[in-house]
């Protein structure tokens, strides 16, 4: 009798895993269509659905810096049919900033697989007097809070990166000016209204190649394949100034493990596919595939790190 029960339990579990998916899977992107998260999501969805045997529908739920989409995802039924992209550290700071009144906690999402890691970068106008990171930091030390630095938004990875830079180079203080996304940052720095920008490689490397912009440092431990001439923070002696924006897929808490594994299998296969590699390269997006526990650990550690800098950001005068 016991055996029968065990067999029954085992076979239903198995049947469940085999049964998934029986209908299309929705892949939520918390940003509007056409953005870089959306582009990458569509590339991987188109490849992964072949292996999954069901179509993967990209669902754009943009708004409030991702908060609208993540709120919806945290409330979705955890059955594997509603999965979504989590952008880090944007998701972390939405949770950490009490002003945002987020309706979900860090545990609401279970990371499955990371796709993209877009490293941070410091850049200036092509004809700027600052030729190196040292020039810029010396100026920021000599005239504290006078050198303006643009971010793509308050508590974005770029904002946190400025704080990391100030922490690693004592005495250097920037005047932080927040913009709404990459396009207005470009406008303000190119127009000569702001001295430097903290940004991501993916959004500026083409203009760096043409010489319109000058990159001072990439905030990573290894050089970017898109701009191999630009030194890393580690090489320049600031190994703690490591910042990036990552995008990966997560499921709502409570999704059955066999379903998670099934999704992970198809998504991993798709991300290793040569077609995926080629298309991501064309889109200028740097891959950093992290699966399972590795990704979960990254998510947790980043949350702790983001908590520290979010606290700083909120207490710093002239936020």
């Amino acid at each position, binding site marked *: 009798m016991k055996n029968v029960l065990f067999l029954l339990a085992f076979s239903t579990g198995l049947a469940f895993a085999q049964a998934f998916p029986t209908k299309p899977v929705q892949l939520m992107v918390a940003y509007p269509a056409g953005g870089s998260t959306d582009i990458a999501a569509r590339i991987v969805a188109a490849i992964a659905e072949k292996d999954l045997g069901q179509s993967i529908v990209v669902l754009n739920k943009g708004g*409030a810096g991702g908060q*609208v989409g993540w709120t919806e995802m945290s409330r979705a039924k955890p059955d594997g049919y509603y999965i979504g992209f989590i952008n880090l550290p944007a998701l972390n700071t939405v949770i950490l900033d009490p002003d945002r009144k987020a309706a979900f906690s860090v545990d609401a999402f279970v990371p499955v697989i990371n796709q993209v890691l877009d490293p941070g970068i410091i850049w200036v106008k092509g004809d700027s007097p600052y030729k190196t990171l040292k020039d810029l930091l010396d100026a920021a030390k000599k005239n504290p809070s006078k050198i303006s630095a643009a971010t793509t938004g*308050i508590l974005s990875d770029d904002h946190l990166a400025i704080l990391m830079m100030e922490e690693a180079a004592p005495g250097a203080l920037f*005047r932080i000016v927040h913009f709404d996304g990459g396009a207005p940052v470009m406008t*303000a720095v190119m127009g000569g209204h702001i001295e430097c920008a903290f940004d991501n490689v993916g959004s500026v490397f083409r203009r760096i190649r043409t010489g319109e912009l000058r990159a001072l440092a990439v905030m990573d431990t290894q050089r970017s394949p898109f701009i191999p001439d630009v030194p890393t923070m580690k090489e320049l002696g600031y190994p703690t100034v490591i910042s990036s924006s990552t995008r990966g897929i997560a499921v709502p808490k409570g999704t059955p493990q066999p379903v998670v594994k099934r999704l992970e299998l198809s998504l991993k296969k798709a991300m290793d596919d040569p077609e995926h590699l080629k298309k991501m390269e064309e889109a200028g997006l740097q891959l950093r595939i992290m699966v399972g526990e590795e990704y979960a650990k990254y998510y947790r550690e980043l949350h702790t790190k983001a908590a520290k800098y979010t606290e700083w950001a909120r207490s710093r005068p002239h936020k």
Partner: protein
Amino acid sequence: MEGLQYLASGFASALTPANLAFALAGCVLGTLIGVLPGLGPAAGTAILIPLTFTLDATGAIIMLAAIYYGAMYGGTITSVLINVPGEAASVVTCLDGYQMARQGRAGAALGIAAIGSFVGGVFAAAALVMVAPPLARFALSFGPPEFFALMFLGLCLVTGLAGQSLAAALLMTVLGLLLALIGIDPVRGAPRFTFGIPELYDGLGFVPVVMGLFGVAEILLVVEAPFRRLVETKLSGLWPSAEEWKRSGGAIGRGTAIGFFLGLIPGVGAVIPTFMAYILEKRLSKHPERFGTGAIEGVAAPETANNAYANASMIPLLVLGVPSSPTIAILMGAFIINGLTPGPFLFKERPDLVWTVIASFFVGNVILLVLNLPLVGLWARLLRLPYQYLCAGTLLFCIVGAYSLKGTLFDVGVMLVFGIIGYLLRKLGFPLAPAVLALILGPFMEKSLRTSLEMSAGDFGIFVTRPISAALLACAALILAVSALRLAALKSIRGGGS
């Protein structure tokens, strides 16, 4: 002359079958909207925005621009045939157009209106090609403080020129700005005025609000209007006679100039150019007594001015990102929905899109000319449709459109509530244009204001120490002062008379 090179590639793209089809569809739909009494370009573009959502950005904007021009022309048809202007800019056309129709010259009136519109529209679009690139280059030197000052100036112009009461216009501007504050704070990220309703986190949707204020409110007003009978007239002889041609030539030229220059100034609105063109013709005429009895130049001048204005008013939008009228604000909304911010950077970042759209203005004007002359009879027959069906059908279309924006009933509710608000405001004589412009400019103004203050570490002096910003703000102050004085003078004249 870099503009001409870009324009050539713009034409190549505007003339692809798909984009041509969007322009054609836009012209037909726009004319239809213009013909339907009460529904003007603002209502038309607002109601039809959801139709363009499935298109790419270029197609959507081409189609909406074509709807705009189409509606401007469609309004003429009803002015001439039933003495009811299809939209406000065709009010003047009634004066002589309807008289011409009674004398059996409806065809010639509509013909000269189409030809004048074509000349005015093409000239304004050509001027856009010349002036836009250098202007856009100049505007590239604008930083956040200059953009704030520019948008502030734009709002002051709209407020100063709207309606009879500066107080009422200011109230509407503030209402628009307040509505624009709803949603997540763009800098700090905290929710504002959302009352815990998640749908409000992204702010009030611009499209459902304008669909309500213009579309639904207009329908409610139309329902009230008395039914008008159609003049039973034969629509033969669309081609004006040699004598009529002679009289119209100068009027078309002057109408073009008036429409073009007034189109550059935000807030003038489509009505003022038509009145000015009409009055100028009357003053210049050797027989001013013929005006009002069916003078063809009384049709040619305002119709030309109104289309030149429509095309020229694209210049402030495309070059500076400042919409000059509610219709243009709705077009700006279409850019924003597609992830594009109109302004100098659009010329730099997406020249392909900008020049395709500009080329489509020429294409649209040609389509309107060849489409409308032969189809006038068909449009006229549409006027015989009973109002009740038209109104019910249009309202249904609005509801489906609002629902299709995001697939939520919330937007339908927003539209209906703003329909009622718009109806009441119109009844009470409050101008809607300042509210709509403030609503769309509000978020941009707030962002540039706060970014400027971050740049200056909180010092408001940044707006007056930078020369361009200081000059723009001085203009804004001057405009408010002048319009306050003008309205005060108007009031004392009236007060003394009664």
